[in-house]
Every structure is written in structure tokens, then in C-alpha cells.
């Protein structure tokens, strides 16, 4: 398949694209997780402060 082989440079081209999209997706996933964690931590702290009063 010409698409996969990319004129013989397939390994290089697809690795480059794969790594790039991989990193972009990783950043997005990590961003969501981080945000969720921050919100959760703040909620816990606030609850503790409220019940501590």
C-alpha cells in the first residue's frame, strides 16, 4: 500500500505523526485529569473546613 509505505519512508513518517498526536492527546487527557483532581481536592478541603467549624 502506497499510503503505508510513503515511498519507502513509511516508518519515519508514521512514527513522527504517531508521536505527535500521541503527545497532543496525552496533554489533553492529563489536563482533564489534573483539573478533576484539583476540583476534588478543593471540595474535600472546603468540606473539612465546614464540618470543622
Amino acid at each position, binding site marked *: 500500500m502506497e*499510503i503505508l509505505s510513503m515511498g519507502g519512508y513509511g516508518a519515519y513518517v508514521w512514527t513522527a505523526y504517531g508521536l505527535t498526536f500521541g503527545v497532543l492527546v496525552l*496533554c489533553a487527557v492529563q*489536563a482533564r485529569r489534573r483539573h478533576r483532581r*484539583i476540583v476534588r481536592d478543593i471540595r474535600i478541603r472546603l468540606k473539612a473546613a465546614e464540618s470543622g467549624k
Partner: protein
Amino acid sequence: MWTFLHKLASPPHFYALAARLIPWLAGAGAIAILYGTFAGLFLAPPDYQQGDAFRIIYVHVPAAYLSLLAYVIMAVAAGIGLVWRMKLAHAVAASAAPLGAWFTFLALLTGSIWGRPMWGTWWEWGDPRLTSELVLLFLYFGYMALRSAIDDTARADRASAVLALVGLVNVPVIHFSVEWWASIHQGPTLVRAGGPAISTEMLWPLLAMIAGFALVFGALLLGRVRGEVLVRERRARWVRRLMYPEVETP
């Protein structure tokens, strides 16, 4: 107009506004990247010198441009925070750093992968552009290391701001390195006197990818800044109201 900017600098307003912007930025970015990737891989004709290997340009160049743009944004935001003492500006700088580092890493990695078949080597010590881009990565690391080494947020903000501004000299060096010194890296393709040195069919996917990366970067950046703002303002009333809207704060 000034009221708008003033409101923007207020964390709760920024937090809400960013939340509305992120989906649009991410969506537009995704579309641009999808078009750019498809066109770059399948529609653009193969290069007469490099064959299909040149298609790496569609991920390498956007990553490289973004690595520089992120640093400039980081340094400018840090400078604004330093001079005008805006906490939000510092939050932007702190958020831009890890993203910029990732793009720099990608630029170096994809560049190396492209270099292997083209120049016959994975790396060339002493090449001015490769070296200065590597220095950029180290500058990002230094910035993040300094931030994490200082416990006091205000001092961390201001110290890293000074560092970011000092490192700004590296950005023009990276861009002009291929003109100032002998380099195996090709000269500027887009930003040069006389206009872009690339055919239109090859140019459009590239522009789309650059725009797409920038939009996605914007979305990621705003996302991180929102998180940063929450952490910095966690004791503020607006955060409490956000987390527990049902609770009536006295």
C-alpha cells in the same frame, strides 16, 4: 473596552470565560488539524527531492513554531505579571511552560526522525538550530525547576519571570541561526523576505496545521490556567460558591 480587560484580569470572570472558549478553540483546532493532516499526507504532491519523507514537515514545523510561541507567551505573561503585579499573568506563564516544553520535545524528536533519512544522521552536534532548540528545552526545564524549588508562590512567580525574560534572547537566535551560521537545517521556509518558498498545494496544509496546533495550544493553555487559578484562589469566596453553590455563605 477597558472594563472588559479589567474584568478579564479578575480570576472568577476569567475562569468562566475560559470555560466557554475552550470548546471552540479545541473544536476549531481539531478541524484544522484534521484537514491539515489529511491534505498533508494524501493531497499534497511528493517533494521532488525528498519524496514522501517531506510530509513530516506537517508535524515538525508546527511543533517548532509553537515551541517558540509558547516561550514568547510565557515570557510576555511573566513580564506583565512582574511589572503590573497581575497574578493571572503569572498563572498564564506557569501554565505555558510545560506545554511549551512538550512542543519543543516534539520539534526535536520529529526533526531527528526527519533528519535520519534526509541528512543521514539522527542528530548533529554543533548545528546552530538544533543546539539552540535544545537550549530552549533546557530553558523550559530551568524555569519549571526554579518554580518548584521556591515554596512562596509570589517569589516563585517573580523569580521565574526574571528567568523567562533573560532566556528570551534565545528565541531570535533559534529563528536566525540558519541565516547567521552554516547549518545542515534548511533555511526559513515561511517567514522570509520574498514570501514563502513552498508550492501552494504544500503550503495550505502547513498553514492549517500551524493554526490547528496554535488553537489546540490555546485550549490546553486556558485549561491549565483555569486549574492554576483554582489552586491559587482556593480560599476565595468565589471558589467556595463555585464548589458548593447550595451552601449559603454568611
